[in-house]
Each structure stands twice: as structure tokens, then as C-alpha cells.
């Protein structure tokens, strides 16, 4: 056992390894955009928040690893005279300084950048379009209130896997003109939509990565999320909460239409019981 390996290769190997790791990570952040293209208004804010933390945390990450490498590389030989204390002031500065710095940047981030965007996602605005999304093993169903602007109530006794997936009843007045689209969510561009999410069986999570939107579907209650889709095009809903064996297959299309086209579609599509 060679304990006093003063000229140990590790004195070089470890710092080089840590620095290479740091450099590779930083390069991966700088030279490739890992996030899916963003297509919603608050999504830009989420990306801004992430960029802010990336910069702030990246600074700590790099500084920490540089120090680690430096300390290892410059550590004295073991047979040199014994350790001399650094001095209380320097130690205090070294410990308290970064602590306060990290606390400040993280709290500033969450208070001034994060929370306003968080507020946008959960804002209640009567002007918003209301759309309901139903999650069940292993499908997404979009439910629109139709021309009367009212969602038909769920009548779980009427549920049918093939013919009445949204569990509506034709004798309910509000249900007659409701639209039910299976496996596809059609959205207007440039208009805020509030999605109320409902699960029929287990937990699911309504996730549109391109919108930076994620909200669990919880049986028994409605959960809500809100976004403004910015760019017409096709996107995807994924399920982000394990919901059974075919969790990975639980996906649906998101189709963002220009506002006029969307309104036209709403007008023309016949209601569920029409």
C-alpha cells in the first residue's frame, strides 16, 4: 500500500479529468440547443428561466470544479511541514461568500423570473378559450364545449370505450353540441387557452414539450393549465406520469391552426349528438 504517493499520477489525472468533464459539459450547453423548439408564449419565459439558471449554476459549476482541480493539483507533498491554518477571516469569506451568493441568485431567479411565469400558467381569465382534455389509459381525448360554450357533464355510466369516450349523455342539453376529438388536440394560434384536465382512471400527465406545458391529470379533480400557442403547426402530447404498461405509447397530436381556421373548424364540426 503506497500511501505517501507524493508524485502520484492522480495529482495530474484527477484535475485533468475534472477539467475535461467541466469543459465537455460547458461545450454541450454552449454548442447545441437541447431544448425542443418552443411554440408557446410562456414557454419562452420558461426557457428564459432555464437559461438564467444555466448561466448562474454554470458559473458555480465551473468555479467549483476549477477550485477542486486547483486544490488537488497544488496540494503539498505529504512530508512537507504540517498544515498551517488558513485563518478565520479567509475561511469565513470562503464559506459564507458562496453560500450567500448561491442563495441570492437562486431566490432572485425564482422570485423575479420564475414566479411571474408560473402565475401566467395558472391565471384564470374568462376571456380564454376553454378546452377540456380527458386522459385515460392510454389515450388523450379533447373535449370542446361547442357553440353554447358549456361542457356537457360527465355521466360515467354512459361511458363507452368505442362510441362514447367522453361519457356524455345525449339528454344533457349542454352535451349535444360538444365536440369530442380522439387522439388529437386542435388549438388556435395566438389565443390563450385554458385546458382543464381530467383523468378517468389513473394518474397521467399532460405534457406538450414544445409548449413547456406539463400538468398531471388526477382522477377525481380537475387540474388546469394555460398557454398561448404561438406558431401554427403539428406538435405532440406525451404522458409524463407512469400510467401503466403502455405509458410510452400514450401520445396524441397537437394541431395549432391559425385563429380563423380554428374558428371555422369549431363552426363546421357537428356536435357529438348532432
Amino acid at each position, binding site marked *: 500500500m503506497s500511501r505517501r504517493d507524493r508524485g502520484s499520477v492522480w495529482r495530474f489525472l484527477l484535475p485533468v479529468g475534472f477539467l475535461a468533464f467541466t469543459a465537455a459539459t460547458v461545450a454541450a450547453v454552449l454548442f447545441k440547443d437541447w431544448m425542443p423548439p418552443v411554440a408557446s408564449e410562456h414557454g419562452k419565459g420558461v426557457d428564459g428561466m432555464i437559461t438564467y439558471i444555466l448561466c448562474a449554476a454554470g458559473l458555480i459549476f465551473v468555479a467549483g470544479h476549477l477550485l477542486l482541480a486547483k486544490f488537488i493539483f497544488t496540494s503539498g507533498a505529504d512530508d512537507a511541514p504540517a498544515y498551517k491554518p488558513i485563518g478565520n477571516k479567509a475561511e469565513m469569506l470562503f464559506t459564507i461568500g458562496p453560500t450567500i451568493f448561491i442563495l441570492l441568485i437562486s431566490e432572485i431567479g425564482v422570485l423575479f423570473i420564475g414566479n411571474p411565469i408560473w402565475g401566467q400558467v395558472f391565471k384564470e381569465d374568462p376571456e380564454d378559450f376553454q378546452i377540456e382534455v380527458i386522459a385515460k389509459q*392510454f389515450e388523450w381525448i379533447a373535449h370542446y364545449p361547442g357553440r353554447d360554450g358549456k361542457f356537457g357533464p360527465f355521466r360515467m355510466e354512459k361511458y*363507452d*370505450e*368505442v*362510441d362514447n369516450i367522453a361519457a356524455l349523455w345525449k339528454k344533457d342539453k349542454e352535451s349535444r353540441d360538444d365536440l369530442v376529438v*380522439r387522439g*388529437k388536440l386542435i388549438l388556435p394560434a395566438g389565443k390563450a387557452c385554458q385546458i382543464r384536465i381530467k383523468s378517468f382512471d389513473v394518474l397521467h400527465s399532460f405534457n406538450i414539450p414544445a409548449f413547456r406545458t406539463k400538468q398531471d391529470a388526477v382522477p377525481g379533480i380537475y387540474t388546469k393549465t394555460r398557454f398561448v400557442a404561438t406558431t401554427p403547426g403539428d406538435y405532440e402530447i406525451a404522458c409524463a406520469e407512469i400510467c401503466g*404498461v403502455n405509458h410510452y405509447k400514450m401520445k*396524441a*397530436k397537437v394541431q395549432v391552426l391559425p385563429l380563423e381556421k380554428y374558428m371555422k373548424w369549431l363552426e363546421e364540426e357537428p356536435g357529438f349528438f348532432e
Partner: protein
Amino acid sequence: MKTMVSAGVSLVLAVLLMAGCRTSARSMGAPEAAPGQPGGAAGSVHEIADGATLSGTVKFEGDAPRVRKNSAEADGVCHKAHPEGVPSESMLVGKDGGLANVVVWLKGGVNGTFEAPKTPALLNQEGCVYKPHVVTLMVGQTLEIKNSDGTAHNVHTLSKLNPEMNFAQPAPGSENKTFGSPEIFKVKCDIHGWMSAVVGVFKHPFFAVSDADGKFEIKGLPDGEYVVEAWHEKLGKQEGKVKISGGAAQTLDFSFSDEE
């Protein structure tokens, strides 16, 4: 302690409840063994080559309901097969109000045991639809469940008397299954919710499925008095009686209506 006791008590309750479910399921859709089969006990295998023919029509009273189409856009493969959506097969009304996909079978009065055919019955998943929509086979007969699509399916049998099966089937794939108890149950795909089929398993070969016009035909019936049941996945079931003597053909008609 008491939680354990109450848990135990409720466990017993739950078991009783489940037992209750089982019996009700039996009375709802599952074929029962014919009461008292004295003669056939020796395991004699009946020849069904000759015998009487029972035929008839199943009608739907009222307006033919609209056939719903389910969008298959969540899955590219299914969407390609059905760009306009997959039509529902749960309630198909043909000309003159003939109701398709009704399982007609002899519920009571059949004696003896019957050998299952060697040829397998086929349930094919093609274009994200089960073909055929209703499969009938005998106890012990092989059911070949095939995936002819370019996407994975999940076969989930909602059976009560037979063990419930729920397995993923990659594409392409084929599985052979047999069933030990007579029962009519649904099969669904957990991934593509619009996919639904009916499997009928019987102890004897006297069953039929009504065609697009609602017509059915059961062949090779020996003489006797029979209880005939017509079973539809959404409209429930109807019973009729028929007496066959001297090998003469008989007819029996059923009619269903939607209460709502």
C-alpha cells in the same frame, strides 16, 4: 390489531362481493352448462354432420344509429389505414333493419360433449381494427391472435371466467391462446381505445354470428328442445325457445331496440 381484524373482515366481504360479481357475470353473458346432462356423461362425442338447421334474422327496431368514427391520428400507422377515422362496429344495422354481429347460441338443452375443431379461429389486428369483429370458437380450440399492423398492439381480454389476459403484441406478431371456460367477453386494445372485439367461447358447436343483414344459421342440430340466446355487445340479450324434431329446419327471429 383491530385494523387487522377489520381488514380481514372486509377482505372476506370483498371476496364475497367478488363471488357475487362472478355469479352475476355468469348470468349476464356467460353460457352455462346445460342443467343436468345425464346421458352424455360418458364422454360420447356427438357427430354433428347431419341434423336440423336453425336459422333466422336479428332485427333492430328504430332508426339506425349514426356510425361514429374515431380519429386514429395518435398513431401514424392507424391514421394511414383510416385517414377519415375508424368507424365503430359496435352497432351495425344493415338493410331492413338487420342487426349484425349478434352472437346466437344454444344456451340450454344441449347434451353431451363435443370435440373442438383442430383448425384455429383467427382474430386479426389489421388497420388498427379487429377482424372479424366477433370471433366464436369452442372451448379448447386455438385462437390465433395476429398483429398484421406496423405498430404494436395490446391485447386485453375482459374475461371473467377465463383468466384475464393483457399482453403487448409487437408488430408483426402472432400468439395462440385457448380458453377453458365457456364465456362471451370483449377484447380491447389498451393503446388504441377504439379497437374492440367480441370473443365467444362455447362448449358445443351450436353458435352463429349474424351477418350484415342480421341473418344467422346454426347447422347440425340434433332433435331436442333448446333455449336460444341472442347476445349483442351493447343491446344486451334475448332468449327464445325452439323445438326440433325429425331433423326439420326451424326459424327463430329476434329483435332488439335501444331503450334510450
